[in-house]
């Protein structure tokens, strides 16, 4: 089943085209939506929530058309905005209970769900205090809790790690991964930091200037490559020279060397060369694509 699919989705504003013929589908699990600021991520989420009509093309969320079934979609979907959106003078509990009721939960159920969800996002006693005194990390957790409180089938998280310190970022990413796996709720998470998504996503969509650059499973992005990274203490130049003489493809990469692997004999050759030259071999590592590299390559072609 498709969690969301779009077909030639286009949205023009008077001065800019935010989305330009976007056709993409995603299945269940955690999907990353990557793009620079202004790439059209937030516009896409607004359209998927049925809050902004597309100029042309169509989009469906959980099989429901966004232009006609907006209210129904918003009942099944949770949304965590990018910007600050919490009133400072109410407590987290009061706010989350209220928003649960706005999603149609009866009063008692709303209280139980709010308590459950606030515990899951890691807010303890402080949930009874006014939100105004919270740290950025705690505010992000409240924003996440309100998106989860009505037990949606799918949640849209717009830049959930914005403004967090490294530890808070780690905790937020772990939580998002848990939502996608343990909780069984599909996630569409946007970010402009590719490294983050590598860790938590099953699938990544890359958009730029409102166009689709790439959409594929995370494994395709980060599959092993036919190269090894070699790092030696000193004498990098000498090693590179020796390996080139032996007919191996070598590219310097900072203090390290990237060596094309033809087969097991390449690894033997590196070992022997290092031993012959009496070099101190620090690292011999299987090369892996990082999403960033793919993104750079693809962007270069556009």
């Amino acid at each position, binding site marked *: 089943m498709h969690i969301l699919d779009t077909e030639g989705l286009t949205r023009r504003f008077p001065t800019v085209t935010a989305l330009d013929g976007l056709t993409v589908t995603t299945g269940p699990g955690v999907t990353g939506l990557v793009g620079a600021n202004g790439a059209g991520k937030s516009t896409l989420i607004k359209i998927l*929530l049925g*809050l*902004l009509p597309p100029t042309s093309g169509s989009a469906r969320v959980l099989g429901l058309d966004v232009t006609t079934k907006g*209210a*129904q979609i*918003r*009942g099944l*979907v*949770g*949304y965590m*905005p990018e*910007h*600050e*959106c*919490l*009133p*400072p*003078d*109410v407590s987290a509990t*009061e706010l989350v209970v*209220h*928003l649960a*009721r*706005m*999603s*149609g*939960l*009866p009063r008692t*159920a709303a209280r139980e*769900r709010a308590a*459950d969800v606030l515990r*899951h996002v890691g807010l*303890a006693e402080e949930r009874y205090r*006014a939100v105004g005194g919270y740290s950025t990390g705690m505010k992000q957790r409240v924003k996440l809790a*309100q998106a989860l409180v*009505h*037990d949606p089938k799918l949640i849209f998280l717009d830049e959930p790690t914005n403004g967090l310190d490294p530890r808070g970022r780690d905790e937020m990413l772990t939580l998002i991964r848990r939502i996608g796996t*343990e*909780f*069984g709720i599909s996630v569409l998470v946007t970010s402009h930091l590719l490294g983050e998504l590598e860790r938590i996503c099953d699938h990544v969509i890359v958009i730029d200037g409102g166009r689709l650059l790439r959409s594929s499973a995370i494994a395709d992005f980060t599959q092993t490559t036919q190269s090894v990274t070699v790092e030696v203490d000193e004498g990098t130049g000498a090693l590179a020279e020796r390996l080139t003489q032996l007919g191996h493809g070598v590219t310097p990469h900072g203090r390290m060397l990237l060596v094309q692997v033809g087969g097991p004999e390449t690894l033997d050759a590196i070992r022997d060369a290092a031993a012959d030259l009496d070099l101190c071999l620090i690292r011999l590592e299987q090369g892996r694509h990082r999403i960033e590299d793919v993104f750079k390559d693809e962007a270069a072609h556009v």
Partner: protein
Amino acid sequence: MSEIYDIGYRHYDGPRLGRGHATRALTVHTLRGVFGLGRTARGKIVPFGLVAIMLLPAIVSIAMMALLGQRGLSYSSFAVVMQAVVAIFLAAQAPTAVAPDLRFRVLPLYLSRPVTITEYVTAKVVAMTAALFALVAVPLTLMYVGELLVDLDGPPATKEYLGALATGLLLALLLSSFGLALASFTPRRGLGVASVITVYLLSSASVPIVYAMLESSGNDAAARWAWLLNPFWLVDAVQAWLFGSVPNADGDGYPAGPVSGVLVVALIAAALAALALRYRKAASR
């Protein structure tokens, strides 16, 4: 750690109620906010202080009926006499109903749920109207119950009481739609308070000025129109027209006929349209 056991995530498979339920929940939430319930103690001082002030004349009136055997304040004049208190309540509390959601950008959290912007605005107007109506109706009802208990000579003024209640509801709707529109255009709470009170003071102050100007130029008939510049006298004119109550205006009363009623309806429509426009713009951001 305080977590002794973790039962894991539980899905919710209970009932999901419709948009009507959500709209009612928002109305009650807003109404609680207007009276500072569920907020800090500081938020309760102003609304409940003003409610207490509104109750004072009712208590004095009951005392007069019991001790002197005569009516103090008439039902039909209550709102006009107490207008400054009602206006302060509107100015102080209308911004609490709409300003935080705009200023702190809470609106997207509502709009990403099934409720529409129309239902959101409706809930806000209904809540503020209910708050203002309660502010006027509770003392009126207290006075009426007092009158029944004291058992004055002659029949109780039931018709006048019911007329005052109906007029109070109309007044509440007019004031809340205007107050919320003004407050929604000035999302900072302090500015909202100032703008509502300024508009009230201007409308109040203009009455005697315009009246005196027209009267001194010998235009007595036109001078009567000056009363309609103030919302409280405007609604009192509707009361006089609909229920035949004694006008609270000095001199020879209000312009005759349904003109005041038409004016009230037009003003309410204009304020609601302004609110709708304001929120359509806020929703598209």
